[in-house]
């Protein structure tokens, strides 16, 4: 039986069948948790998956008490119901003044305590079937069956399709509830629908990679995508892609190194997210630091040109290297020109601060205060120069 075309995928990757199932599972889980997780992460509820995962314990216990056996479908249903109840309770708790993280923490603690109490009762009951109930939730990707991947893919596809179809309405509901309600969207129903998909993804994902690693699977794609994009639809698409790439890369590395899949996928994902935070163009830590350094150097150069004698040695060396300053500390001809330019810029800037509002701009764009001469339209620039006294006596 080859419902998902896994044999051909396996042939493509040159992997044995069991490894192919794991890779496919990681791919599906990555895309699903990436897309659905973005709603949680962008709203400051990254750890909601942690609470849902912990909350499934009492559900599993109750399902076992009712059924009397460890039938997988029944226990999964119990876990899903408990997860959904927990997720809805979090929404209810947030209606008080409490913050989302506290709401998540309270629900996590309460449900897990309840789970432990139920578990001790089941253990004390002496039912031989109960052994291993608590580890039901903390699965291993190596034991993954093609059927599990198929179920995960179906749930994931439904969730992703719903998100794609309803993306505008969902964004309005989740980021500006009052507005969404005002334009007549069924806000509560949509919130519950998203929560339900998230719960389904977590319950299945927890079976594959475990509760704790599921937390990272939800957070990593969106944190990464958010560094690379500013618009919600783009973040959503990127999160799906990042989830897929991280899942497949991690799973392949794990099969190569004979290591457990979940931890390797998570470590790959966290490294990717941290790299994005450091290296993201324009926004990342590195690019911010470079920008700051550039601005600092420009400011130092301007000060040094005004007063070469008191410049710090590094700036002096830089000026000498640029042929603006002789090694003896006297400005060259080019240096004098640069100094005049800096001085004029300063005068213009002061004039802009003093008279800016009175100057009529010909186009709607606000000029860049650091480059007034380059961004003001010619008439406005002439007006500013006149007000600064630059075209009268100064030059």
């Amino acid at each position, binding site marked *: 039986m080859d419902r998902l075309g896994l044999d051909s995928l396996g042939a493509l990757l040159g992997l044995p069948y069991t490894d192919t199932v794991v890779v496919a599972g990681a791919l599906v889980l990555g895309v699903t948790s990436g897309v659905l997780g973005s709603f949680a*992460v962008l709203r*400051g*509820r*990254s*750890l909601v998956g*942690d609470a849902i995962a912990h909350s499934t314990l009492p559900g599993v216990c109750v399902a076992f008490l009712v059924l009397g056996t460890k039938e997988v479908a029944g226990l999964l249903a119990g876990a899903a119901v408990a997860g959904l109840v927990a997720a809805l309770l979090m929404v209810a*708790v947030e*209606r*008080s*003044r*409490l*913050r*989302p*993280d*506290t709401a*998540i*923490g*309270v629900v*996590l*603690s*309460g449900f*897990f*305590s*309840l*789970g*432990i*109490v139920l*578990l*001790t*009762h089941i253990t*004390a009951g002496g039912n031989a079937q109960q052994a291993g109930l608590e580890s039901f939730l903390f699965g291993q990707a190596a034991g993954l069956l093609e059927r599990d991947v198929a179920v995960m893919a179906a749930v994931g596809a439904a969730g992703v399709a719903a998100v794609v179809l309803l993306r505008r309405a969902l964004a309005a509901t989740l980021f500006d509830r009052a507005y969404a309600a005002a334009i007549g969207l069924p806000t509560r129903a949509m919130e519950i629908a998203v929560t339900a998909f998230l719960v389904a993804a977590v319950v299945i994902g927890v079976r594959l990679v475990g509760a*704790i*690693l599921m*937390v*990272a699977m*939800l*957070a*990593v794609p*969106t*944190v990464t995508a*958010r*560094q690379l994009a500013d618009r919600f639809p783009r973040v959503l698409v990127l999160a799906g892609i990042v989830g897929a790439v991280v899942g497949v890369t991690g799973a392949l590395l794990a099969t190569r190194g004979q*290591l*457990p899949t*979940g*931890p*390797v996928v*998570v*470590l790959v994902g*966290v490294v990717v*997210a*941290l790299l994005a*935070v450091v290296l*993201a163009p324009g*926004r*990342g*830590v590195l690019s911010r630091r470079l920008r700051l350094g550039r601005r600092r150097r420009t400011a130092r150069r301007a000060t040094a040109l005004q007063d070469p004698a008191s410049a710090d040695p590094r700036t002096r060396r830089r000026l000498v290297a640029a042929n603006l300053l002789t090694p003896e500390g006297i400005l060259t001809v080019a240096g004098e020109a640069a100094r005049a330019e800096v001085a004029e810029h300063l005068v213009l800037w002061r004039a802009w601060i003093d008279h800016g509002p009175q100057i009529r701009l010909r186009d709607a764009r606000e000029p860049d205060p650091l480059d007034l001469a380059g961004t003001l339209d010619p008439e406005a620039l002439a007006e500013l120069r006149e007000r600064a006294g630059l075209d009268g006596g100064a030059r």
Partner: protein
Amino acid sequence: MTADDLTIVLVAGLTATACGLLGPFLVLRRMALLADAVSHAVLPGIVAVWLIAETRAPVPVVAGAAAFAVLCVLGIDAVRATGLVASDAAIALVFPALFSLGVLGITRYASDIHLDLDSTIYGEIAFTPFDVVTVGGIDLARSGVVLAVVVLLNLVLVTALWKELRATTFDPHFGRVTGLRPRLLSRLLLVAVAITAVSAFEAVGAILVVTMLIVPAATAFLVTRSLAAMVAVAVAVGWVGAVAGHVLALTFDSSIAGAMGLVCTGCFLVALIASPRGAVARLLRARRRPAPAGP
């Protein structure tokens, strides 16, 4: 109530006090889930101690766990400080990574021995009376002594830096402007949480510590309007949980930690529904309010 029961209640009460002193700050700083993060992030510490010293003795294990707990909170703080990642997302990145390292370490180097969190570091509160040390000729529960020291340290930290912690918790920018160094204070608080959590895990288990750090503080948040009152109520709710939870556990022959957690959660639910700004009050207000007049 026997002497053993008294010991259990006292140890739980000390845990409640240590956690109640710090919990309100975590809740107000939106870092409530830090304890849960720490509870999982200690795994690589235990594995590292096993790899280096081949031991599961409590003292080195707790030291290794504490090292990684501190690493975890400082890592979260560093990721958060970039300003590019919210604190909840920073928590969600750092602790699963550390936990993954621990799991990999176990499968790679220590799969032949039994090494997991439950058996090495998470204590069981029911066993605390059996592990005694003799101090000045009197037998005392070891975890009780450890927790008493932790309570004392937290008390010193919170009282000595009360004004500073309060100012930076509610308004970090004001704190920075007045020269209070909010980053340093935040790190100090996080390290205190890490130390408290690890020493309490060893005595009473992870879930009770997580519960005691979050739920009493959340309850107090709902019923108080000043930080001092919030801390006092948080400690009190923790003690109610310790005493009533133990009675419940004895009556129904149930898990002690679980019952204590449930009592705390019960207190929270009562506060949520019946507090001056809770659900009931909101409903009453909505009923009393006249129908909105037309324009």
